[in-house]
């Protein structure tokens, strides 16, 4: 399990206990975290789960697949710390991770 903190665009924060193997998108949607849509249900096919990973956690989040990079390429407001939350699965190594969600997905 990992404690993941989601910080919304308005600064509001919320911390969830996410079970191992559950994606950060899935946990956010199931708990009504604002700013994440997840239209494709986690298939890396919509880019509506775009988040910014806190710099200290970027390496721990792992590498992007080719498809993730392709989908992010078309997303709005992408920066070097951008990831698709459905492609990051919780595990003990991510315990304490902080991610920022955009005002809205596009």
């Amino acid at each position: 399990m990992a404690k993941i903190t989601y910080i919304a665009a308005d600064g509001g924060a919320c911390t969830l206990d996410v079970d191992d193997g559950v994606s950060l998108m899935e946990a956010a949607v199931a708990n009504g975290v604002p700013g994440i849509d997840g239209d494709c249900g986690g298939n890396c096919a919509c880019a509506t789960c775009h988040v910014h990973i806190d710099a200290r956690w970027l390496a721990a989040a792992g590498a992007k697949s080719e498809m993730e990079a392709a989908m992010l390429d078309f997303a709005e407001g992408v920066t070097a710390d951008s990831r698709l939350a459905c492609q990051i699965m919780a595990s003990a190594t991510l315990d304490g991770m902080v991610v920022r969600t955009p005002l809205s997905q596009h």
Partner: protein
Amino acid sequence: MATRAIDFAAWPAEPPHLAAARARAYAMPLTEIDMLDTDLWVNDMHWPYFERLRDESPIHYHANGRFGPYWSVTRFADIMKVDTDHARFSSDAHLGGITAKDMDQDFILPMFIAMDPPKHDVQRKAVSPIVSPGNLAHLEVLIRERAQAIFDNLPAGETFDWVDRVSIELTTQMLATLFDFPWDDRRLLTYWSDKATADETVPGNPTKAEREAIMLECLMYFTKLWNERVNAPPAGDLVSMLAHNPATRDMVPMEYLGNLLLLIVGGNDTTRNSITGGLTFMAANPGEYAKLRANPDLIESAVSEIIRYQTPLAHMRRTALVEVEFGGQTIRKGDRVVMWYVSGNRDPRSVDRPDEFIIDRPRARQHLSFGFGIHRCVGNRLAELQLKIVWQEILKRYPRLPEVVGIPGRVPSAFVKGYTSLPVRIPA
């Protein structure tokens, strides 16, 4: 024309036309089914055929399709697999493009919906700023003002065509705004859009030569706009954006035409038919309209549900670039693969109670209507915005929904799933 409201509540669970279609769909040999038969679409009878394909042959080879042999992919999860595999399933116009009917190889209109990476990516990025969040916020004000004027001018107590007066007018005005198109000529956009997708094998539609002549007229018109704007300072409209962006300013004329038509068709029929569909669904499900009135916060999920339930583009097609083993079948290199979004959106394996229209469905956004993967609809937020405004304005005005007083006319197409007419009356 009938002026009495249809009593949907009195309809049997399955309307009679579907019961007859079901009997036929299950009696005929699987090998004889052709989902491209326009009769199935104009008469709204495709549903039981898809149900049978999903259950009995989810990756199905039609050896005798109207436009040549093709595979039908009908389950939600399988469609997702094809849509996200652009390395093996191509959209390229030269291989046939994105509809079951091949693009005419002697009149290829290059447009990025029918391109593979890397060219697709470059052109998509050149166009997408038109629907950026900032531009949408600006468009919202204009779209709302114009929608209000349209609703304010609808007659009460008299039957009129909702498709023409509301759906077409609204989407045409939105497009004219995107292109900064001469206002009084705006119905030309509707005309070009309708003709660009008209199937020449359907009687009454233009022949291939006539259609091509109409498309060239469109090109001439837009070339005039291009010439005006390329010499003016960059502006926020699409023509100006294409004329000034390094990725698009050197396009050859046919490529310009292709990308224009992509936006005209993409932004027109689809949204138009969702506006019309939404009214028929609410009329048939008065309890859902009551829910929306009681809780207007449901509008966003209602909009997603309308788009799922309508599925304005029934399918998208790909061409296999290599041999692919899929669902126990062998798809050969060069085969046409049709992803039936309209079927996937009604697949009970992925959608709970798929045949019901439920505006507060959990995860209403998880539908196939906008496609998935690198070609996922660029205009999806704009389409949702327009529908949201339509329903907000309807809610403001009509405690009782405008009455649907006749059967909708349907477009004879297995691609554009939509309506030609819908008689409606606003209670006086």
